[in-house]
């Protein structure tokens, strides 16, 4: 039979990764609560399922190792082995090794490299201490093949099979006719006699009891064992006799009717385990359908086109001044919006899985560093785009590692500073005005403001004499070139690579900033867009061109009168109810030819803590839009994050507000020596 299992193998790989994660989390849970039966059950099931499924794909190395792990877990489950720190450490490493096995053997189809085999040998050795002392290699109880008349030969024989089914057969869900049909697949049934003589008289006959018997002649190349196996499921209460009839032959093999006294079943010791549902990690599948992420992207892209098309239809309808048509298109728009929300929601996953992965990291690193650090996770259910979740892992890891390495002090130093010996790290996620915020907070020593400033000036990142707020100073550590190899040492309370962290977050259209209090700790705040695919945009026009500003960054719109225009152009900022609002003239910024329109407007945008006014000609209203990434050609274009197609078919560029604001910040920082602009941006 040629059954292609490639796709199922992919499912197995994904599933194994999930199970290993469950295993790891449950082991960590067990570390804090050694008596948690739910956790033990979950760990056992993870190993058990991986072993069982790996066997289906013939992944012998996975099965072999996992079997030993499962064996120890089984003993843990029945109480013959107690939970202790060493065992948990060993089992955590076993999980790592299983992951490697899956990645190497299942994903790549390779064999383990020697180093990994060495690790495995060490783990097997460590595990053996927890196995039963008289542990014998697993014997696979196969039906013992006593007689096999057809063994070795594939010659066709004529077999005579006598069957007397037991009374319970029907009630057990077995159908004698099915067994006959199955025999037909093994050869040719030349004769069948149905025996009904034993059916009792009507008054004592129960229609649901079976009294049937069959005498069958079967011509088949199958051996005795194969034929005998056919009746495995009914052997308990049936008489089966299988004989080879050699026509004109002296060699007749006869097998006595077998009342295969199934080993007496003994007291059912293994009690049925019913775990409270609450202690189970949420079942991931069942009611779920696994969909290839590409298909989802395709769907979202299509929905995006639909949004655009529907917007186009609405625009047309409006210009027709046909009320019923307008009403119809607005209904369609409403539905399209719902579809869009639904489609986008398909890509949203909770951040919790990513967060939980860090429990292990924190545990391992804190042990490595000899610090006692506790990780608190909150907001695990906060959902965000799958792509973002996947890509935020590395930056988060880096930030956590830094916080543990440099932020949190040793227990002694902490106590000396009057703090609890145990360090505290927290990961938190929440939604905030169309963005997701992830906070990594520690209660360590905080950053050293003076040394950062000193270093930054030394590196030419800050003009000497510039007046910077504390926060601006702290955020200097994200500047490229701030930390260099020389600065690897615990210079700032943070190691190298913060610029890389920032770059990765910026690539996700996100921002990062940092707040620190001496002696009390540091908070790093990452702000990310909810989705990468679609934004609610605010359309603005300059000449005949249209630009899109992400709506959630628009604070207000102001008309710029002729008087203000002149003064604001001279000063580069606007007095917004007493606030200094830096202005960017988009006409100038994007080098539009021609003079400004008669009327101009200012769109006040805010991102994180920066605020600025964008000077445009026209305000064209809200528009939901799909982001089409810009080609490489335009990759270097500052201030543009993508493009979109309007209902009219025209292309509009999407403004990259964070980048624009950043430009202003830098511009102002360069001129910071100038006495009249003490703060870079309005708060």
């Amino acid at each position, binding site marked *: *039979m040629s*059954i*292609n*299992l490639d*796709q*199922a*193998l992919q*499912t*197995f790989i994904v*599933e194994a990764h999930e199970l290993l994660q469950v295993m790891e989390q449950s082991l960590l849970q067990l570390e804090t609560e050694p008596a948690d039966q739910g956790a033990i059950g*979950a760990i*056992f*099931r993870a190993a*058990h*399922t991986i*072993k*069982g*499924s*790996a*066997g*289906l*794909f013939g992944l012998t190395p996975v099965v072999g190792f996992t079997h030993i792990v*499962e*064996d120890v877990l*089984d003993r843990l489950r029945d109480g013959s082995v107690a939970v202790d720190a060493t065992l948990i450490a060993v089992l955590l490493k076993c999980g790592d090794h299983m992951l490697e096995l899956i990645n190497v053997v299942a994903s790549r189809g390779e064999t383990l490299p020697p180093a990994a085999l060495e690790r495995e040998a060490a783990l097997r050795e460590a595990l053996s201490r927890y196995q039963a002392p008289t542990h014998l290699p*697993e014997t*696979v*109880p196969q039906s013992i093949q006593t007689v096999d008349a057809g063994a070795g030969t594939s010659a066709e024989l004529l077999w005579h099979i006598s069957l007397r089914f037991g009374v319970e057969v*029907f*009630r*057990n*869900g*077995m*159908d004698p006719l*099915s*067994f006959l*049909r*199955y025999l037909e*697949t093994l050869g040719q049934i030349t004769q069948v006699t149905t025996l009904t003589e034993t059916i009792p008289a009507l008054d004592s006959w129960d229609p*649901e009891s079976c009294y049937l018997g069959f005498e069958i002649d079967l011509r088949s190349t199958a051996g005795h064992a194969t034929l005998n196996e*056919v009746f*495995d*499921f*009914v052997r*308990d209460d049936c008489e089966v006799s299988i004989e080879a009839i050699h026509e004109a032959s002296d060699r007749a093999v006869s097998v006595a009717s077998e009342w295969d006294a199934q080993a007496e*079943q*003994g007291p*059912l*010791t*293994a009690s*049925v*385990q*019913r775990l409270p*549902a609450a202690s189970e*990690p949420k*079942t991931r*599948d*069942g*009611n779920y359908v*696994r969909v290839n992420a590409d298909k989802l992207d395709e769907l979202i892209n299509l929905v995006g086109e639909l949004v655009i098309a529907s917007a186009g239809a609405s625009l047309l309808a409006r210009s027709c001044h046909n009320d019923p048509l307008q009403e119809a298109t607005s209904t369609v728009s409403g539905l399209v919006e719902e579809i869009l929300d639904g489609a986008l929601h398909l890509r949203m996953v909770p951040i919790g899985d990513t967060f939980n992965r860090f429990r292990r990291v924190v545990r391992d690193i804190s042990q490595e560093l000899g610090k006692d650090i506790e990780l608190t996770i909150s907001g695990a259910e906060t959902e965000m785009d799958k792509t973002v979740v996947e890509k935020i892992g590395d930056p988060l890891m880096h930030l956590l590692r830094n916080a543990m390495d440099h932020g949190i002090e040793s227990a002694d130093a902490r106590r000396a500073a009057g703090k609890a010996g145990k360090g505290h790290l927290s990961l938190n996620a929440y939604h905030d005005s169309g963005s997701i915020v992830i906070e990594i907070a520690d209660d360590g020593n905080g950053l050293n403001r003076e040394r950062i400033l000193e270093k930054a000036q030394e590196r030419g990142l800050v003009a000497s004499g510039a007046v910077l707020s504390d926060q601006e100073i702290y955020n200097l550590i994200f500047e490229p070139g701030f930390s260099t190899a020389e600065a690897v040492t615990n210079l700032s309370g943070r190691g190298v690579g913060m610029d890389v962290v920032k770059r990765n977050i910026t690539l996700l259209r996100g921002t990062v900033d940092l707040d620190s209090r001496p002696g009390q700790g540091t908070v790093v705040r990452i702000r990310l867009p909810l989705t990468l695919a679609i934004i609610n945009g605010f359309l603005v026009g300059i000449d005949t061109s249209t630009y899109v500003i992400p709506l959630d960054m628009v604070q207000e719109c102001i008309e710029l009168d002729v008087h203000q225009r002149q003064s604001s152009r001279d000063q580069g900022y606007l007095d917004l109810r007493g606030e200094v609002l830096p202005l960017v003239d988009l006409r100038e910024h994007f080098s539009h030819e021609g003079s400004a329109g008669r009327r101009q407007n200012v769109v006040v945008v805010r991102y994180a803590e920066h605020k600025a006014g964008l000077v445009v000609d026209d305000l064209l209203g809200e528009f939901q839009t799909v982001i089409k990434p810009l080609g490489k050609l335009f990759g270097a274009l500052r201030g543009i994050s993508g493009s979109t197609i309007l209902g009219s078919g025209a292309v509009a560029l999407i403004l990259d507000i964070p980048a624009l604001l950043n430009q202003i910040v830098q511009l102002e920082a360069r001129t910071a020596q100038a006495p009249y602009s003490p703060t870079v941006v309005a708060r």
Partner: protein
Amino acid sequence: MAKNVLVVDDSSSVRQVVGIALKSAGYDVIEACDGRDALGKLTGQKVHLIISDVNMPNMDGITFVKEVKKLASYKFTPIIMLTTESQESKKAEGQAAGAKAWVVKPFQPAQMLAAVSKLILP
């Protein structure tokens, strides 16, 4: 009309392998991830054969079989238990509960198909 086989296992790859094997032979396959989920899938459609794993979250296989046997419309439906070689006691327990057929994990798709076709035709 193809016969419906309900495959109950918490491992989606096992369900997929069984599904591929059975569909190739002409059976229709319904999947469930644990006993509780499976009980829900028994209503509203006719299931002709049940294949169930033993160790599952929420409701394990043995409890599930016992529940099935209580249902008037399923008390005579054949059930195949998926056991592992190390679970002889579970197999006996399953048989006592009413799952008289079994397939030992790990199995080849062909083995699963053989077990199923002993019990029902596609």
